[in-house]
């Protein structure tokens, strides 16, 4: 060809016969260019990336642990400005004003009274609280209302708690041996740690055995009861025995170690609390505080102390005082993981079976497709529920149950694609070259149906998240203390009128993600195949 001479003499640049430089272009580049032109899809890509980033980095984000229960902080409303202490104070005061109003000590005019009565009768207690808090504060200031002695006492004690209460967490503990060498308590052997605890308490080590054996058994029993309900105590005990018998020594030792470690930690926590508590009441320390405390001559611990009521809950808390923000982020982790892993497994199964059925045809095709037909006939949700009931309720089983049922559609779709592709000449060409069946399927056929598969998977992720949410909503999905968007919504439906934020935030977050995924799927489909705009 003409251009090839040009190419050699000059710099090696690909030009056409008019000496115009020809820029390379692949189908995926083309698709990417089209995707970038679609504004909604670009916004969706950004949103989805933010979500995934948050979910992945959740453990290192400066948020409170998602499973940390602070009883004092139950049902605090979201606030950007107020600390937990202030919110707590407001909440308690509002309740006390309401009580005072009920007792007739807090006097309001006739019209207001009627309005408040009306709210109470329509069980809109939160409106009453919201109204009475500023009203009470105003009256208290102008002197028309005073607390009685017992109320004043409880207010004072709460104020003191809010000012002084601290929370201590043990980051790490070290054991000093005779040579003065430090070793991490976490890495001690089981008998060493038991010995350490005994030394700490000043008792014989063998006296502890009964206690921890009992505790571990109780712990296991609780777990068994949560996984399978409705059995008799005897049966539970039998299951417990079975489990203990079948457990290896190593696993049992690990349980013991965990149990004792927690105990040592809580002992140290108590000791530190005592020490720091006095310091705090004298307002001598500033928080948060990180320090290394020598508990005894052989035990050192690094302790972190924060003022409990200085916490801020931007999205409020739930009924156990857990931070909604971190629960939503961790819940997102679970929901998104279920979406992606579920889709991935179902796509893998679906692509392999679908392409085998499509390419090989004949009896294999017939067999696979009849299996698909039969599974289509079974009620999808029922199967998942049954699977969850049989294999127990945990996240892995949920993944598994969703994946084994959701490959049906994709396998049919891939089969159709492969069947239309397998008579193309490039497949015949590969066959005439002696290419093996796996090579033809995975080098020629699957790459050519990849765009359809990608688009389908993207649109599939939201539906997985929806299914998981639905199951969690029914109480069949993830179990406490884990959270998912669905379980967060499910838990909060009860207190919907009193604590709307508990429902509102996870619902919004989930909706935005689902929207973004759907727009992204649409965008991808248009990008890969501009002609298919109205299909699928």
């Amino acid at each position, binding site marked *: *060809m*003409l251009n090839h001479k040009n190419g050699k003499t000059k710099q090696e640049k690909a030009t*056409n*016969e*008019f000496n*115009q430089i020809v820029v390379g272009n692949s189908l995926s580049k083309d698709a990417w260019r089209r995707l970038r032109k679609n504004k909604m899809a670009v916004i969706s890509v950004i949103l989805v990336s933010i979500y995934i980033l948050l979910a992945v980095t959740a453990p290192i984000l400066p948020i409170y642990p998602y499973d940390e229960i602070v009883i004092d902080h139950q049902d605090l409303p979201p606030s950007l400005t107020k600390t937990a202490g202030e919110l707590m104070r407001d909440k308690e005061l509002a309740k006390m004003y309401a009580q005072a109003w009920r007792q007739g000590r807090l006097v309001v005019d006739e019209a207001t009274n009627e309005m408040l009565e009306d709210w109470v009768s329509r069980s809109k207690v939160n409106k009453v609280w919201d109204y009475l808090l500023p009203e009470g504060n105003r009256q208290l200031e102008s002197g028309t209302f005073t607390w009685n002695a017992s109320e004043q006492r409880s207010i004072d004690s709460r104020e003191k708690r809010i000012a002084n209460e601290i929370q201590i967490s043990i980051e790490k503990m070290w054991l000093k041996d005779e040579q003065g060498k430090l070793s991490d308590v976490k890495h001690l052997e089981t008998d060493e740690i038991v010995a350490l605890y005994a030394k700490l308490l000043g008792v014989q080590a063998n006296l502890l055995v009964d206690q921890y054996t009992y505790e571990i058994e109780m712990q296991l029993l609780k777990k068994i009861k949560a996984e399978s309900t409705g059995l008799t105590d005897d049966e539970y005990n039998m299951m417990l025995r079975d489990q203990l018998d079948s457990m290896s020594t190593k696993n049992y030792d690990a349980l013991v170690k965990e149990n004792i470690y927690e105990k040592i930690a809580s002992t140290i926590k108590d000791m530190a609390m005592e020490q720091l508590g006095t310091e705090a009441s004298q307002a001598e320390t500033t928080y948060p505080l990180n320090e290394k405390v020598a508990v005894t001559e052989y035990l050192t611990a690094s302790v972190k102390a924060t003022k409990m009521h200085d916490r801020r809950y931007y999205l409020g808390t739930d009924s156990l005082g857990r931070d909604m923000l971190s629960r939503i982020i961790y819940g997102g982790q679970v929901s998104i993981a279920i979406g992606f892993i579920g889709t991935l497994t179902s796509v893998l199964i679906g692509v392999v079976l679908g392409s085998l059925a499509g390419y090989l045809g004949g009896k294999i095709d017939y067999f696979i497709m009849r299996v698909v037909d039969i599974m289509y006939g079974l009620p999808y949700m029922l199967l998942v529920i049954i699977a969850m009931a049989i294999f127990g309720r945990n996240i892995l089983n949920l993944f598994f149950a969703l994946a084994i049922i959701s490959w049906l559609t994709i396998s049919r779709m891939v089969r159709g694609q492969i069947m239309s592709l397998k008579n193309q000449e490039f497949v015949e060409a590969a066959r005439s070259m002696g290419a093996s069946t796996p090579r033809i399927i995975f080098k020629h056929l699957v790459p050519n149906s990849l765009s359809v598969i990608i688009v389908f998977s993207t649109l599939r992720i939201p539906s997985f998240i929806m299914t998981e949410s639905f199951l969690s909503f029914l109480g069949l999905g993830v179990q406490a203390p884990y959270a998912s968007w669905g379980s967060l919504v499910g838990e909060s439906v009860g207190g919907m009128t009193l604590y709307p934020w508990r429902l509102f935030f996870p619902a919004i977050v989930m909706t935005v993600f689902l929207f973004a995924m759907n727009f992204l799927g649409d965008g991808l489909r248009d990008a890969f195949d501009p002609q298919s705009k109205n299909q699928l």
Partner: protein
Amino acid sequence: MNKKTPKSYENMLEVKNLKTYFLTDAGIVKAVDGISFSLRQGETLGIVGESGCGKSVTNLSIMRLIPSPPGKIVDGQIIFEGTDILALPENELRNIRGNKISMVFQDPMTSLNPFLRISTQMIETIRIHQDISKKEALAKSIEMLKLVGIPAAEERIFNYPHQFSGGMRQRVMIAMALSCEAKILIADEPTTALDVTIQAQILELIQKLSKKLNTSVILITHDLGVVAGMCENVCVMYAGKIVEKAKTDDLYKQPAHPYTFGLIQSVPRLDKAKDGKLFSIEGQPPNVIDLPPCCPFHPRCHKVMDICRNQYPPTVDLGNSHEVSCWLYAEHKELADA
């Protein structure tokens, strides 16, 4: 073959400086870039060119069927019986389209609706343009089918398109196109999808009907053999432009443009013994996006000169209505001017 029609006849169709561009992501595709030709009554005009040269776009422009966007007729006039089609409102256009100017497409299967009987489709077409009853329309349809040589037309008309073979379907298409007594029949590669023996049947049919009904025909094809047997005048298109226009005999005897010469030479001929290598035009047809202002054929031309690389050649009349756009003949014009 229809001999030269008297000059007193007005041109049925006159295309002047037609430009149809497509605005794509990659740039402006000048699919048709300033072409002009005319068609007399009863004349058969051939438009020849390779795929992508703009011959189909030309004919879609005449019907104003360019998908828009991305396509747009940016300039030019198409004068049919004294009126400019491009200036007509849509409702008047419908009166011309399918009625006075009809089309036959390359693939007869895709241009017939597979879910409707032939009768339904034909009656509908006729009744859109003519104010006659269903019965009369049916009778007319049967008459047309007989005219195009479909045996047992009275029964076959109630069949569905898939019950016809490829050649028969193309006959039905021609019958439909001519059922409204069209003045112009545009046949876009009518025989490309058909076998040689069937192709011969269809071409003969078109020729016979055009003579009988005095219909003008625009035959769009890539096959020089088909043009040789059918047309009186030929336009050769390359990269959106007409590079040569002549009477068929002149064109084949003395092709002026190197492209036309190359095209004719590069077809293997049954009637000539093979003598070694076949003549061939090197290179590829150009991509019509962002063409530089040169002769688009110059990279493939065996008579290329310096000027060809920088400027598009003017159109030169070689006499006997033989026109060519090539720098080889530009001197002629200068001489004539002087």
